[in-house]
């Protein structure tokens, strides 16, 4: 099954932010084989906020890990900004993640020994490149963490930590941001802050984001939702609302 997005209006560039071709990931062999991904073709267009939904074990995290070069697929190809991820060695993958991809994880995603500001600039510091001060200032202002920059993660609330993580994900102006359950550990107010920021960075800055979630209200912030079950894409929804997502989840039996 092939899916292409049709709602891409603000970016006419030829290469999508990322795409996967017949992606398969199998654990174990023979009778015991488990197909985490059973042939997925998907394209994440630039400037689009995509939500990936599905029940536990549907393969949504595996899809993200393979696309981000954190995991090697059993077969098939993944591309980020047109770059064949499978063709990269460890150093190349590391550079890809550092320069082209931003990550926001569910929790524990800051380095405890570094201050908030140092955590944000970490990818740039690792690359040894100069931090774009204006860009940093903009992100910090947008996220409302200006007075928290010298604090260590242990001195920040969960919501503040996740906003710092968002800033870090965007600091290198990546081609694509992967967010894995970014609001999984947050209360509803903090969740709304984070999701609003992600939404804005897509709408106002043209950032591309792929977010794995199982929260329909969170997914409603996205432009496009794809549904995974048993390692395959089983549905999609353009311009979703929480209700339409719930409706679709019911029909899919997920």
């Amino acid at each position, binding site marked *: 099954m092939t899916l292409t997005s049709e709602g891409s209006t603000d970016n006419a560039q030829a290469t999508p932010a990322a795409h996967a071709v017949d992606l398969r990931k199998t654990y174990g062999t023979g009778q015991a084989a488990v197909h985490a991904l059973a042939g997925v073709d998907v394209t994440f267009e630039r400037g689009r906020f995509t939500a990936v939904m599905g029940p536990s074990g549907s393969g949504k995290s595996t899809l993200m890990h393979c696309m981000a070069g954190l995991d090697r697929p059993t077969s098939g190809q993944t591309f980020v900004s047109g770059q064949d991820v499978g063709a990269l060695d460890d150093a190349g993958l590391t550079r890809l993640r550092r320069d082209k991809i931003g990550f926001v994880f569910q929790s524990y995603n800051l380095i405890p020994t570094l201050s908030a500001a140092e955590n944000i600039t970490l990818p740039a510091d*690792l690359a040894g490149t100069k931090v774009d001060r204006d860009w940093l200032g903009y992100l910090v202002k947008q996220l409302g963490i200006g007075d928290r920059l010298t604090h260590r993660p242990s001195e920040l609330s969960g919501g503040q930590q996740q906003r710092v993580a968002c800033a870090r994900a965007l600091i290198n102006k990546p081609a694509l941001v992967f967010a894995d359950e970014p609001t999984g550990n947050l209360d509803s107010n903090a969740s709304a802050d984070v999701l609003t920021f992600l939404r804005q960075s897509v709408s106002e800055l043209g950032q591309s984001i792929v977010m794995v979630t199982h929260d329909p209200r969170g997914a409603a912030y996205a432009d496009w939702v794809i549904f995974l079950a048993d390692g395959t894409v089983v549905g999609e929804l353009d311009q979703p609302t929480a209700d339409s997502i719930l409706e679709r989840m019911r029909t899919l039996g997920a």
Partner: protein
Amino acid sequence: MRKVTIKGLLAHKLRLVLTALAIVLGVTFISGTFVLTDTLQNTFTTLFGNIYANIDFQVRGVAQLGSGAGATRNELPESLLNTVRRVPGVAAADGQVSGYAQFVARDGKAIANSGGAPTLGVAFDPDRQMSPLHLIAGGPPVAPDDVVMDAATAQKYGFTTGQRVRILSAGPTRTFTITGIVQFGTANNLAGATLAAFTLPTAQAIAQETGKLDDINVVTTPGASKTAVQRAIAAVLPPGVQVVTGQTVVNESTSSVSQALSFFSTALLVFAFISLFVGAFTIYNTFSIIVGQRTRELALLRIVGASRRQVFGSVLAEAAITGLVSSVIGLGLGVLAALGLQALLSGFGVTLPPGSLVFEPRTVLVGLAVGVGVTVVSAIGPARGAVRIPPVVALDDRQSVAGASLRRRFTWGTVLALAGAVLLGIGLAQPAIQLVGIGAAGLFVGVATLSPAVARPLSSVIGRPLPRLLGVAGKLGRENSMRSPRRTAQTAAALMVGLALVSAMAVFGASLSKSATSSADQAISADVIVTATGSAELSNAVPATASAVPGVTATTAFYSGRFEFQNSLTRLVAVSTTHLADTVILRMTAGTPAALSRGELLIDSTTARSKHLSVGGTARARFALTGPAVLRIGGIYQANALIGSYLVSAGFFLAHFPPQPPGGLLLRTGGSSAVNSAVTQALARYPNLQVQTRAQFEQAQVSSVNQLLGLVYALLGLAVIIALIGIVNTLMLSVFERTREIGLLRAVGMQRRQVRAMVRSEAVILAIFGAIVGIVIGTALGLALVASLRQQGITDTAVPVSSLVIFLLLSALLGLVAASWPARRAARLDVLAAIAAE
């Protein structure tokens, strides 16, 4: 609970292996020492037993000074031999003579063992039953210029019967004909000693004992009553001569060997215990971290019903099992180490009579007790920490368990460190070696307890250049080292102890070298110093030969021997008095050197003070040869290690001691190198001499100090290795703990190279931290040690800054080495697995 313990052990194999390694090495050291010294002891006991196997009695002089095998005894008149032979029940009696005789190899060099074993010249005993020597080729010496050579020398230097060989002795150097080759029992030589056996008259001449015997060995006729024979012999002996059983002689020799060996084994054991002490820090640290990592698991055990006792017991049991397994491995390796050392000894030319390794039950008991004991005791602290974990922790995400309060820690640390320092001070002043050891241990534990307080700021300072050098990786490494000051300090503590001891030895060695040089400078004004190499003796002809060289303006011969001064055994030095002022500097504080010529005694200022003696006073003394004497104090000079505490004239000395050549010569040549080389030339036919200028002499002293230091460093090296294992261990555990964090860093773009740099940075900071604290403490310890040995002749203090800097740099380098494995592991972590972990 037993199941939990064993599962716990199996789950953490790697860190247990690392922990165990510290114990394995320490126990190896202990058991190796025991096995080696027991084996040597056994070998010598057997050897002496064989030598005296057929000897029933020995007639010898009564011990004049000292006792047992090391006693000074007077020689016997040769005429006594016939007296003894005539005693009813005596089947045979043979006179023994032993002195210095050294073969000269074909290349003109004197033959000696590097181990410093003696070169013996003895009378060949023709009685096969009584002699321990067995001819394996040729026959006994018959003519005055016949000699029998030991098989080891003959083999090594290619001598056979019928050939001629030059032999150095206290008399003139002479050439002999080899009539036979002998073995010592079944060994080719006697523990490395070379042997030249002559006819009795020749041996007497060589040993400067014409008409005299050292002792007489007696064999009784079969069936005769031994006690009756012994009584009969005793009845014919003059005063001052005794008859003892062969067994007595064996026992005396054996016990003198075991005394020497026990000194040797004690010295080695000290280093073994230092290693284990350092190992204890490593174990303490490992178990602390293990308990920390298992906090939730232990809390869960408490929830499901484990009592505090059971938790405590499970941690201790884990320690006991680790200790037991390591000790058993260590015992096994100890045997191998002993074999290796034995091979090393024979490499030095010390061929021992064949004897199998001796593995005493005591070796096993001590090895196991110490290995298990150290492990269990080190784990008590962490086990108590485990007990304090409240069960609720298992249900709570915040895994923090507060340790002992900092203030309590500070108090304890200060008390321990101060108490240790005081004990150490008393121990050094006494001197009492046990107190020094306990004090040092207290000091180290105290400082280790206190050091977490400075770990953060110090790590920060040490790590300051790293962010600039290595970027984020360096910065993160520095932050990681500051993150858990307690862990950093505990890990560094082991290295601290090692470096403290090494630095203390460096300060001691540098001060010793400097003192040796300056005492030579202050005592000797001679330009050239002639001494015998190793255990050799000068020929009587050497003084005349040397002083006959044109340009030699003054010659002073010096002698030394044992005597009793105010009831204690000590060393007496004598110098020839003509031209004394040209070769020896005596800084008189009272009296005059001229008193020497009047047969008066000069003493040094330290002795004068401690014994309350002054010029004009008298003191009782006793000489082995001439008996008691009252000596008049003619002068007091400033203490100097080279001159010693008691000085008389050569004339006085020779009147109270058996005839002997001087121990060395001091020559005045005006510093002319032409004269110096003329002296060397003139003495060339005595290859057993060394002719040194004063500078060379001082250099030789310094290099012998350095040799000793090198040996001590090598022995301390094991402790440093164990400390490094501790660093490896901590880093591995840290990497394991931070799996998730490292995974995150990798996810956001950290290269493997950067991960490695991060781990290495932390290791280098750890190592430098330990080294700095260690070097500071060690320098203080070394200075204290030097101060306490002022009386013993270490008058100068030197701090070898360059050596200390090298130690620091080496520590940093070793830190890098220790980090290589953990760094590789960290870099190899699977990013996804790291993120997904837990």
